[in-house]
């Protein structure tokens, strides 16, 4: 392993300044579950690692009760999300995604921000944030800017972040009433697994509990970056959601995907899984919506 100097800034501004000083010889590090592996394997060899972990406030996780906006600081770990009742109850798609990342040890260390910025096609954490129309707030030498999470990724291991920029937090707008969401990581193993395919579905339905008013179908490992299957979403919106329609949407999503053969899985099977799992996740969304509706009904 190439030796490096560990720098520990106390603020985002200090971190950005440190980067400004060392330029491309420096790398930011959050949980380190990807960066340290890459350094050890010799895939990157920075002279300086700027450890963001000690910066206070970057691990905020709260929902604004007035606006309904959810804020997830970039240093929030997968374990924090997994253990949050707010996430589990109101954002099941996030819970589904983060609770199956790596192992308990990895989830204790790894952060949602690191998961996004690592920018692999299989990033479990990215799918729900795209489905929830999340926005990333970036801070850098030129100040702050916002980018929709869906537009963060350029290609594998590359984001739109410019040199020195840091992901501060992700915000998620208030969810519509009658929203259901679910994610499945389809893999071979129950832990320490990258998905063969990752499928997130979010549905919002009308008061009739059937007609889809908004659909998000997001796929991991279905192309160079995590992405939405927009044709499939369009098919669902405005129509009553049935198993048959979901299968059609799944088929469309499979068709517009760019799955590949790799050591992990074959393209035809990945397509099949998109087809099947879009339907299954869609039905799970409807179940969640119906369950909530029943609960609300009882309360009234």
């Amino acid at each position, binding site marked *: 392993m190439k030796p490096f100097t560990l720098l520990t800034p106390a603020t985002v501004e200090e971190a950005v300044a440190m980067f400004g000083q060392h330029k491309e010889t420096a790398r930011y590090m959050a949980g380190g579950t990807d960066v340290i592996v890459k350094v050890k394997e010799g895939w990157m060899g920075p002279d300086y690692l700027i450890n963001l972990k000690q910066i206070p406030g970057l691990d905020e996780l709260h929902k604004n009760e007035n606006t309904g906006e959810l804020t997830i600081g970039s240093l929030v770990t997968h374990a924090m999300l997994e253990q949050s009742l707010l996430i589990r109850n109101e954002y099941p798609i996030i819970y589904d995604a983060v609770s199956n990342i790596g*192992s308990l040890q990895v989830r204790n260390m790894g952060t949602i921000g690191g998961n996004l910025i690592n920018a692999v096609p299989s990033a479990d954490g990215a799918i729900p944030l795209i489905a929830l129309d999340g926005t990333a707030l970036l801070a850098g030498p030129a100040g702050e800017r916002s980018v929709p999470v869906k537009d963060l990724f350029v290609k594998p291991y590359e984001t739109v972040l410019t040199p020195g920029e840091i992901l501060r937090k992700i915000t998620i707008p208030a969810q519509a009433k009658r929203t259901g969401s679910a994610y499945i990581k*389809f893999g*071979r*193993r*129950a*832990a*320490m697994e*990258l998905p063969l395919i990752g499928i997130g579905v979010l549905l919002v339905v009308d008061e009739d509990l059937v007609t889809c008013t908004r659909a998000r179908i997001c796929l991991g490992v279905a192309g160079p970056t995590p992405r939405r299957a927009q044709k499939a979403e369009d098919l669902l919106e405005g129509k009553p959601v049935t198993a048959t329609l979901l299968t059609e949407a799944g088929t469309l999503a499979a068709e517009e995907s760019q799955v590949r053969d790799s*050591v*992990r*899985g*074959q393209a035809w*099977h990945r397509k*099949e*899984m998109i087809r*099947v*799992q879009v339907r299954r996740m869609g039905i799970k969304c409807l179940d969640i919506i119906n369950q909530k509706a029943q609960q609300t009904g009882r309360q009234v």
Partner: protein
Amino acid sequence: MSGYNIVGQRVPKLDAAQKAMGRAEYIQDVKLPGMLYGKILYSKYAHAKITAMDISRALALPGVHAVLTGKDIPPKMRMGFYKDNPPLKADKVCCFRDEVAAVAAVSEQVAKKAVSLIEVEYEVLPAVFDPEAAMEKDATLVHEAHKTNVLKLPWKLHYGDVEAAEKDSAFVVEDRFTTTWVTHCCLSTSGAVALFDASDNLTVYSNTQIPSLAQKDFLETLGAMGLKGKRVRVIKPVIGGGFGSKLDTYAYEHIAILLAHKCRKPVKILFDRKEEFEATSTRQPTVIYIRQGCDKEGHLTFRDIRMVLDNGGRTSWGATTPSVMMMPITSLYRVPNVRYNAKCVYTNNTYSQAMRGYGNPQATFAIESCMDMLAQKAGIDPVAFRRINQNEPGDETPQGFKITSCGLAQCIDAVEKELTQGSPLEDGEGIGYASLIHVGGGARIYKSDGCGAILKMDDYGRVDIFTGGTDMGQGLDNMIAQIVAEELGLLAEDINVVHSDTDVCPWDVGAHASRSTFVAGNAALGAARRAKQTLLAFGAKLFEVAPEDLVMENRTVSVKNDPEKTMPVDKLLRKAHFSPGGTMLMADYFYDPPNENMGKDFRCNLSVTYSFGVHGVRVHVDKETGKVLVKNYVAAHDVGRAINPMLLEGQVYGGVIMGLGYALSEEVMIKDGQIKNPNFRDYKLFTAKDAVPIMAPVIETHDPDGPFGAKGIGEPGCVPTAPAVANAIYNAVGVRIKDLPITPEKVLAAIQEQSKGS
């Protein structure tokens, strides 16, 4: 209940605390003063001529002490039983794994850097990767001097008359099965430290399963180096997983020796995980053609198997797995007519070694899958079909195996009872069974199948026992401690088991063939009996009774039926020690079971006893994804007697999980000779979260020759797993997967194919 105090107890593994607290010293922890670090450069191609090599830049790097190439290897130095493998290759490489140069330097980092500075020029040769293609007439030769890619090995037998039996059969099935490369995944990677003393005597620290045979290999290496008559001491640190991977000596060990001699300093070579995947040996992959028949009543009439084994570019023990495959082929169930022909074929792939089961899992996958197919054709329930054909005590199989204790029938009963108890099968669920036979009392694959034990007792009633056997995590230390404690009326904690140093431990052929409890256990028992005899003779004099009137129990020696006459063992020992012309208690024993070497036609009684088992599994198959979920697993084993039920269960659980990986997910993916998944991310070893509920009924048949009736259990746990799973999948959704591992892709493809057909 058993009448024993220590045997049968769930005594925790003796080194459990050491391991749990990180105090156990593995090869990773061995660090000697002045030690250098060795690193190996491997081939860049699957098949190529080495046309030039320039080591000058590596040698010039500060901190580098030596660089070796194939030209530095003494001409007679060849590894493996087929002697086709020099530790470094001078002229050509036959697989990516071939070692071409090695470096010793002051640190691992410098060594790594130096290796990267070695320049090798190759002339790439056409390569062959498919063993069946490699058998063809004009196939590229992997070793030109060998003239053919087919190894000259005698794996061929025919007992009875298969053709006549086929004519008389009411039902016959045939099919082709394939199994692929899987690897041991020992948590502690491979490594060795070699050092010479001032007189050129060699010490090697290595995590080997065969200290005595490794010593012999290293003596041969010294011989080739011109150091005849020198001594070799093998020290075995704590082994972090063996599973057969350490049954041979490897290039890295011999290279460490050569480097240490050249540098006159200790040299350590330690693999990283990638190297562990790429440069250690796998389970032997096979292509199996099987025909099996039965009569109207379901009695097996014949079994005919032809097999092609991908030998890879070099030869290690993988090429001898057909000899062990003969065991299930000739002797799993009563089958009067058997034919078997196996060919090991050179390719430019990686090469194989021993791995838990030693060929048995591959052969059993084909046999037991085919048993279900034949049962279906004959219209007989698969469990009933197995009962019709089950082995029984007193049988002699066509190969000449004399079956003594045999609990196969009880195993079938136990598994069926457990599996049929639960809720009724749901849609997509199915149940499958498979049985196994394995050697239970060692196997004579070498001139001796023996093991020595030396025992001494101190003034405090404690025992040190020096065994030739190897504990590699499987629990041999406990077996020996509990056997000795039982015999001497002591507690397990009174027994210190030493098994790590050829300078003090007697000879043993190695920790293989599930033999250690049986053979090393019997050796320890023999030594304990001799010690007991001496002790009782002394006690008899003291109490003025006959030795037969004494009992040893609870750390005391007492006269039977006379509670007054009793003495703690330690006191008795001191009396013996400090009396005029004193005696210190020491005893030794060498046990070599009456196992027979395979004869010319392979007929023999390979083992004095055989182990049996039956696995049954309930699975759920997701018909839309092809994913197989194991709902319940029952693994019943006839173990003779459970010396330690807890460790026994551990062996079975571990075996089943390893077997499930083999069945469902594990595969070293090799494309054009190159390993594509040399890491735990893409090599799908089961994780703790993938573990399934396993029930392990223990069938005790009290073997007449085993120590306290025990038989071997090391390997059996992973033998019938894959066919049990394949049979369950067929039972669930009607598709038969004949190619391991049974991935969701394969299952879904088969289901889709099936629905197209209907």
